[in-house]
């Protein structure tokens, strides 16, 4: 028994959801299927658009031949990236010609961000301006981002209020003193101090941050004191830790915590803490598992529901049938062990990149496993990398190359399938990590792919 829809979106991350909603808003009947939980939970929850234009050429010729033992890395082999960029749109023209932004254009990013704003409402900020915001990262740096969760609203680096960064002795992700030191070294326009406090010690030494978030949600007693009060008490003695340039002591006006301030009642937890501390409270986005990422995932799945998109997870694509030379007739999905054909008039492939397994590889090469789409790559896997981990890594740009309408191209540069569109991480050409462009690329390509798929149906 075939399961049919007009548009079939494969992949449940930011790009897939954007494409599904965009197609649904064009009036198409949309179904979204995903293999497993999206990689949103590994992401920071920030919506980056374009923060840097990284150098694609080294500052001096690279060494030829295989890697060499004992060779020390030359730290100046690659120039610094251009940025941080205040305006993500203006810099797009300086990206490589085959970058997805160059294909779909600045308006696609603008509309993708607008769609995102519409889906998440006041849970996110930044839509009032075209400019990037600079927010602290848990690495102690600041980075440009286009949209940020309300929990990071008080974190902006362009705000000069004295700031306290709080770390917990039982958490190892950062040391708050080194964090504050690094912010100061970046030249931030505010005075900042870091302090490591005892709080989470009340929990088992290796308690997950989700456990801490729940305790704050429920205001569970910790050694007899409610969690929020206990946390405020731990931080209280450090509210005057910040010393300004003249050696004077400032009372801090904002306090940053690792992003575990509640899960279901995050806003309430922040407000309660702010009230107790007499300072604004913000969260610093963390690595996986990321609460801001999980919260965003929840918001987006609600939006998908509201848009009338049917979706199912735990359903990997395991095969496909073509209709003639240039169209996909249906995909074959593994539904609880049985193979079921999923027919559609248009397919959006938003299966992710190397992390989300939308791209697969072995020693012989890199491939797109769902539709066997062409992935350009050097034949020799020793040309997939350069010596500097943060240099121009060819592997970081791996992916399917599409035309301007996001139809996948084959090895000859011809459209492989008329009824397929690609979006998000499976699209190559961007080094989203160094550019700080991952979410923006997903939004821009998701929007265009979804609309294009809906138009395909209407034809």
């Amino acid at each position: 028994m075939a399961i049919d829809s007009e548009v079939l979106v494969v992949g449940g991350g930011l790009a897939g959801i954007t494409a599904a909603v965009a197609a649904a808003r064009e009036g198409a009947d949309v179904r979204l299927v995903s293999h497993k939980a999206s990689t949103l939970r590994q992401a920071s929850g920030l919506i980056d658009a374009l923060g840097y234009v990284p150098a694609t050429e080294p500052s001096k010729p690279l060494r030829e031949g295989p890697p060499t033992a004992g060779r020390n890395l030359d730290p100046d082999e690659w120039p610094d990236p251009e940025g941080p960029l205040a305006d993500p749109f203006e810099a797009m023209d300086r990206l490589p010609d085959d970058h997805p932004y160059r294909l779909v254009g600045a308006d696609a990013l603008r509309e993708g961000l607008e769609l995102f704003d519409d889906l998440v409402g006041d849970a996110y900020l930044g839509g009032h301006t075209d400019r990037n915001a600079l927010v602290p990262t848990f690495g102690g740096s600041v980075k440009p981002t286009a949209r940020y969760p309300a929990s990071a609203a008080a974190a902006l680096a362009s705000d000069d209020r004295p700031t306290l960064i709080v770390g917990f002795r039982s958490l190892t992700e950062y040391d708050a003193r080194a964090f504050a030191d690094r912010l100061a070294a970046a030249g931030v326009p505010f005075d900042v101090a870091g302090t490591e406090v005892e709080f989470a010690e009340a929990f088992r030494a290796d308690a997950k941050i989700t456990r801490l978030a729940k305790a704050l949600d429920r205001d569970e007693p910790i050694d007899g004191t409610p969690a929020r009060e206990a946390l405020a008490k731990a931080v209280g003695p450090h509210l005057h830790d910040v010393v300004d340039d003249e050696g004077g002591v400032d009372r801090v006006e904002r306090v940053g915590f690792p992003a575990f301030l509640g899960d279901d009642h995050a806003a309430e937890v922040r407000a309660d803490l702010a009230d107790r501390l007499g300072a604004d409270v913000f969260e610093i986005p963390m690595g996986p598992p990321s609460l801001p990422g999980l919260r965003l995932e929840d918001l987006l799945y609600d939006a998908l529901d509201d848009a009338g998109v049917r979706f199912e997870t735990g359903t990997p694509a395991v095969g496909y049938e073509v209709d003639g030379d240039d169209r996909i007739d249906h995909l074959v999905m593994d539904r609880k062990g049985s193979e079921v054909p999923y027919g559609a008039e248009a397919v959006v492939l938003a299966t992710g990149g190397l992390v989300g397994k939308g791209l697969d590889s072995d020693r012989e090469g890199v491939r797109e496993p769902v539709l066997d789409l062409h992935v350009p790559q050097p034949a020799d896997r020793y040309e997939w990398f350069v010596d500097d981990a943060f240099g121009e890594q060819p592997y970081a740009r791996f992916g399917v190359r599409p035309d301007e309408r996001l139809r996948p191209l084959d090895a000859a540069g011809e459209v492989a399938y008329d009824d397929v569109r690609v979006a998000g991480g499976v699209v190559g050409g961007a080094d989203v990590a160094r550019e700080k462009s991952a979410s923006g690329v997903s939004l821009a390509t998701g929007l265009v792919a979804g609309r294009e798929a809906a138009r395909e149906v209407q034809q």
Partner: protein
Amino acid sequence: MDDQVDVVVVGGGSTGCGVIRDLARRGLDAVLVEKGNLTHGTTGRMHGLLHSGGRYAVSDQKSARECIEENRVLRDIAAHCVEETGGMFVKRPEDSEEYFQEKLEGCRACDIPAEVIDGEEARRREPYLARDVEKAIVIPDGAVDPFRLCVANAADAREHGARVETHAAVTDVLVEDDEVVGVEIEHDSGPGKRVHRQPGTTEEIHARYVVNATGAWAGQIGEMAGVDVEVRPSKGVMTVMNTRQVDTVINRCRPKGDADIVVPHETACILGTTDEEVDDPEDYPEEEWEVDLMIETLSELVPALKDARTLRSFWGVRPLYEPPGTGTDDPTDITRDYFLLDHGERDELPGMTSIVGGKLTTYRMMAESITDHVCEKLDHDADCDTADAPLPGSEDFSVLRDYMEEFGIRSPIGRRSAQRLGSRTDDVLSGTDPNPVVCECEGVTRAEVRDAIDDAGSDLNAVRLRTRASMGNCQGGFCTHRIASELAQEYPGRVVRDAEDELYQERWKGQRHALWGRQLSQAMLNHLLHATTMNRDGDPATTDADVDFGAFDAGVDPDAEGSGTGGSGSDDSPAGVTATDGGLETADGDERNGGQHGDR
């Protein structure tokens, strides 16, 4: 001369560490100098096999006998560095039956316990062995952690009064009146533990005798003294798997060849190796075919290796030596025996002896023989006790179980900590509370990391070697920044940042050789975490960027927040206000903290 010491030992590998321990225990005033961290050269780049001698039982029975003897010694004195895995020589249908018998007889002739089992029994012990493995010889191979072993030797030497200087490269061998009288060294960051960014100094160390224990680098030291040491460095690849497909050392039972051994080591298996002569021990190609050969050939013994995840590959250089005139073409035929080259007798340059050749398993025996030699030269009468005195950490290995009870660490993490630390478990773990896990892949806690920092300074690669932190599946992606954070209490920000970058880049080096499948996915995840989420690559603190903070979003209504930058962040502000002069000046500012760390 007032500041003259008895002996300078050059080289902080297994031999040098063994020698400094022996010298110190015999009451000599000795200094060890090493240009990198301990094990920087060949010792840190081997597969960790504790030989039973079986590998040499046909071709080199003298080495085989030495191996089994020292194998027994190390199980005793270095129990916390050794895993008694046992080993097998397995025979496939195409491997020679005649050689199998020769191997068996050779083992017995060399006093190596050897037992023949059939294929079925071999697979019962190691279920991933190939179906067509016919039979195997069981021998007492083991796994040894070379880092832990060297660190323990150096620690014991220090306890007996020796000085150990790492990150101190020899820049000259001092010769006066046709006699070696010491060495000149260049401290990477001053004497003592290495501190990133701290400027170095030069030092002359005068000594009554110099021991050149630099292995594959012995020729370079020889050159500084004006003598020829004909070491023939030979490279070999080792490929690290993400799990232990086998718990026993698996050797292929055939005369010689590349890719014929799998060594289980801690959480991983290490596949080895190749044998190819190179000109320069520090500059030789690390090639794709070598990695592919490991996987293809060894999957004939363990088919699961074919599609298994590899974490990285690394190469080492053997310090092979043969007496002048031997003229062996193929490096695999060069003897694995060791040689003492007394430059007084050999080159009429008294005051220095080089020790070349040999292998990790016999490091202690080599150290004993050269220490005997040095004592004779210095007319110093003292007995060697290194075969009987346990190394720090192995003094009372039976207490391990008690520690695990005491600390309530019957969890896998606690067990692993105790296995790594041995009898030092109590000292290391009791001081740190809370003691969260810093490296999840290898189960390394804060206490172990801090202990290693106390010992090694801000060099996080030295911390890694002591603890195994960042050596698991994620290859540092999830823990480089955490390990670096543990430096923050003692070291200024710039030191922390540099140490973090150095470890991250070092981890990347080996992963380049494993960039496909799941490790490529891991590499991309690491890239996203460090570049996207943390912005390590574009951090204004480390780039030359002059950030105009006022040009960025300052919030929906910055004025209402009482922000001092006022409207400068709003949309219509032309260029905003440059809030500071950017990262550089401020970054320099934290050097003011640098001075107080100068004595580290």
